[in-house]
C-alpha cells in the first residue's frame, strides 16, 4: 500500500539529496512533485493545498536553507507534517465505559462492513472478549446470510431472530441476548447506504437510539476518491462517527482518503483491513504508515506479525540446529509454515524498508502456490528422508513426485536448493549473517518462490 506515493517522494528526495544548498526553485520543484503525488494518491484537494503551503513555509525557513543537510531537513518536515495530518492517535478501541460494549458499523454500499464485522469480532475474541454479531441489513439480498456464514466460519455467535425484518428489532434482540447470556461486545452490522438517502439515515438513527452504541465506526474503502470526505462528514454529522475502519488496504490503493478523512472530519482511523482472511484486521498506527510512505519501511508491524507467528522455543531450537549444521528438511518445512502464518508474502515484503521501491521485486511477485508445492514435496517424504536427504535416490524421488503431485524435476530442484541453503546457513553461522549472506539468502528464497533454477 501507499507504494506509489512512497516511490515518488523518494524520487524527489533523491534529487534533493544531491544538492549541498537548497534554492527556492529546487524546493518548489519538490513541492510540485509532492502535490502531484498526493493528488494521485487521492488525498483531498484542499488538504493537499494546505499541506504543501505548510511544508513550503517551513522549508523556506532559515533553519533549512542554512542547514548543511537540507534534503534531510525537508524529509523531516514532510514526515512531521504528515504525522500531524494523520493525527497522532493510535488505532484500536478505547476502553469502554460500560458493558456490553456496542459497536455500530456504518458506511456506503460495498465498503466492506459485513466482512469488517466478522474480522472485528475475531480480533476482539483474540483480545479475550466475547462478541456477538447481528446484521440489520434487510435490504441487500443475502446480506444476513453472508454474516451468518462468516460468523460460523470464525466460531462466533451471530444473533439472527428468524423472520425478523425490522432492523431496529434485530439490533435490540442482540442486545437482549447479550444481556441474558453474558456477551460483552455487540457488533451491529448495518445496510450500506448513501449519505444522502434520508430514509435510510433516519433508520440508522433509530438503530443508534435503540442500541446506544459506544463506538460508531465508519467503514471506508481505501480505494475511494475525493468524495470520501463528503460521505464521512455527512455520516458524522447525521449519526456521529467515532472512528474509521480503512478497508481493502491490501491492494495498491494509495489510501489518500486516510489522510484526508482524519484531517477534515477529525476522527481517527481505528483499524485497517489488510487482506481477505478473517485475521486480516489490524489496529492503525499513524507513525508507522508515515514511515512506510516515506520509504522507511514498517518494521514494527513486521516484528509484531513475526512475534504472533513464531514460537520462541521453536526459534531457539532452530538456531541451535543451524549452528550444529543439523538443519533438516523437516525444519525447513516448519520455517516455511511459520512464514506463511504471517500472511501473504506480498504484504510482508512491502513492510521491509526499501523493498517497496525495488523494481526487480515488482516484476516477480512471490508465488504462494510455489510454497504450497514445496510443502507438499517435503510432506510426501518419509520421516527418515526428511532427516537425511542424502538417502533420497532416483526411485524415492519418483515416489515423492507422485505423492506430491509434482514432477521429479521439481523434487530435484528443491533438494539441490536445500543443499545450497544448508551450506550457506552454515557459512553465515546462525542468525547474525553479513550483508552478502543475507542478500544471497533473499535471492535464494526468491528463486524458490519462482521455481527457477539457481
Amino acid at each position, binding site marked *: 500500500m501507499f507504494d506509489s506515493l512512497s516511490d515518488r517522494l523518494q524520487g524527489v528526495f533523491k534529487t534533493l539529496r544531491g544538492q549541498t544548498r537548497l534554492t527556492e526553485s529546487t524546493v518548489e520543484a519538490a513541492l510540485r512533485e509532492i502535490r502531484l503525488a498526493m493528488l494521485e494518491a*487521492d488525498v483531498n484537494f484542499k488538504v493537499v493545498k494546505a499541506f504543501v503551503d505548510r511544508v513550503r513555509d517551513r522549508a523556506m525557513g532559515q533553519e533549512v536553507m542554512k542547514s548543511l543537510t537540507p534534503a534531510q531537513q525537508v524529509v523531516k518536515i514532510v514526515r512531521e507534517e504528515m504525522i500531524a495530518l494523520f493525527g497522532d492517535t493510535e488505532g484500536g478501541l478505547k476502553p469502554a465505559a460500560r458493558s456490553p460494549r456496542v459497536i455500530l458499523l456504518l458506511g456506503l454500499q*460495498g465498503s466492506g462492513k459485513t466482512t469488517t464485522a466478522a474480522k472485528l469480532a475475531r480480533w476482539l475474541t483474540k483480545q479475550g472478549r466475547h462478541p456477538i454479531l447481528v446484521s440489520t441489513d434487510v435490504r441487500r*439480498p443475502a446480506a444476513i446470510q453472508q454474516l451468518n456464514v462468516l460468523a460460523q466460519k470464525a466460531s462466533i455467535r451471530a444473533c439472527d431472530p428468524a423472520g425478523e425484518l425490522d432492523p431496529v428489532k434485530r439490533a435490540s434482540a442482540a442486545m437482549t441476548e447479550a444481556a441474558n447470556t453474558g456477551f460483552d461486545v455487540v457488533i451491529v452490522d448495518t445496510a450500506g447506504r448513501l*449519505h444522502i438517502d434520508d430514509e435510510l439515515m433516519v433508520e440508522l438513527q433509530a438503530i443508534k437510539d435503540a442500541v446506544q452504541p459506544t463506538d460508531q465506526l465508519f467503514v471506508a*474503502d481505501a*480505494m475511494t*476518491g475525493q468524495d470520501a470526505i463528503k460521505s464521512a462528514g455527512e455520516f458524522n454529522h447525521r449519526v456521529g462517527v467515532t472512528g474509521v475502519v480503512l478497508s481493502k488496504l491490501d491492494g495498491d490503493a494509495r489510501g489518500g482518503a486516510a489522510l484526508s478523512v482524519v484531517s477534515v472530519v477529525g476522527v481517527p482511523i481505528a483499524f485497517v483491513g489488510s487482506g481477505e482472511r478473517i485475521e486480516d484486521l489490524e489496529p492503525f498506527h499513524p507513525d508507522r504508515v508515515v514511515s512506510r510512505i516515506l520509504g522507511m519501511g514498517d518494521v514494527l508491524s513486521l516484528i509484531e506479525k513475526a512475534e504472533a507467528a513464531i514460537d520462541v522455543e521453536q526459534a531457539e531450537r532452530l538456531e541451535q540446529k543451524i549452528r550444529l549444521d543439523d538443519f533438516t528438511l523437516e525444519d525447513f518445512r516448519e520455517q516455511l509454515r511459520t512464514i506463511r502464518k504471517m500472511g501473504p508474502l506480498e504484504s510482508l515484503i512491502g513492510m521491509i524498508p526499501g523493498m517497496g521501491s525495488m523494481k526487480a521485486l515488482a516484476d516477480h511477485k512471490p508465488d504462494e502456490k510455489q510454497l504450497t508445492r514445496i510443502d507438499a514435496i517435503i510432506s510426501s517424504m518419509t520421516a527418515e528422508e526428511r532427516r537425511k536427504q542424502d538417502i533420497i535416490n532416483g526411485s524415492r524421488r519418483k515416489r515423492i513426485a507422485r505423492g506430491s503431485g509434482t514432477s521429479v524435476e521439481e523434487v530435484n530442484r528443491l533438494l539441490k536448493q536445500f543443499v545450497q541453503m544448508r551450506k550457506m546457513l552454515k557459512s553465515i553461522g546462525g542468525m547474525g549473517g553479513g550483508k552478502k549472506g543475507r542478500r544471497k539468502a533473499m535471492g535464494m528464497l526468491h528463486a524458490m518462490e519462482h521455481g527457477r533454477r539457481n
Partner: protein
Amino acid sequence: MSLFGRLRESLSRTTTQIVERFDEIVRRADEPEQRSRPVDVDTIEALEELLIMADVGMPATEQIVNAVSTRARRGEGLRDMVKDELRGIFAASAQPIPNGTTPHVVLIVGVNGTGKTTTVGKLANLSKNSGQRPLVCAADTFRAAAVEQLEIWATRAGVDIVRAREGADPAAVVFDAISSGRSRGRSPVLVDTAGRLHTRVNLMNELEKIRRVASREVPGAPHEVLLVLDATVGQNGVTQAREFMGAAGVNGIVLTKLDGTARGGVAVAIAHDLKLPIRYVGIGEAMEDLIPFSPDDYIEALFQETW
C-alpha cells in the same frame, strides 16, 4: 421518464454541486468584456480544482485545462469548451462491441464491493426487457452468500441461473453455463465473478482460466468483459482498469452508484488514459436502475441548465 431524464435526475445532486462552483467561475469568465481575453489564472485554478475534486485525475485535467487556456481567446464560452474537451475524450475511447457467435458471453469482473452481483442482476433484467433470453451464471464461489444474492436477483428478473456450490471451481461453473446456454438457446450468458484485488496474481490468473474455458467453448468468447467500478473510486480506478485490461481483457466499464454525490470522474480519466469505453451506468438500487451509457447525455446531464 426518458433515460436521459433518469440519468439527469440521478446526477442532479452531483450537478448542483459542480454547477454551483462552476457557475461562479463561468459567470466571471463569460462576461462580455472578458470573452476576448485569455482566461485568468484564478479561473484556471478553479477549473483545475473542480475537475480534480470530481476524480477526473491529473492527466485528463491537465489536458482540459491546457486546451481551455490556449483556446480561450476565441470568444467561445468556457462551458462549451470544457464540454467539447470531455466529448473529445469519450469519442476517442469509443469501440464497437464484438459479437457474431452465440451464446454471447459477458464476464463481469472487478474488485470487492463495487456492485458486480447487483450489476449482473440488473443487466439480466435489461437484456430480458429488450427481448433477449439471458442466462445468469453464479461464478462467485468465494464470497459467503454471493450465489444466494444472485439467485434472488435472478428470481426478481425472471431469468434462469446456473449455480455451483460455494468453493467450486469458477471456470467449471462457466463451462456449465455456456453449455447450458447453448442447448437451451439462451444468450447472453452473464457471468458474475468473485471480487478480486488486481494485485492478487493468483486470483487474476483464475480470470485468465475462465477466459480460456469460454473461448474454447464459443469462438470469440468472452465477447464482453466488463469492469465494474464504483463511482466513488479515486485514481486507483485507473490502475484497476489497466490491470484488469491486461489480465482479463476488459473491454468496457460499468460505472455504479452514480446516485450518490460521487461524480465518477474516474470514467473520464479511464477514457482518457486507457481509451476504454463506458458501457453502462448504475443510477439507483431498483432493478431498472442500470442504463446504457451515453457520453452526450452524461456530459449534458453533468453540465445542464444553470450553465
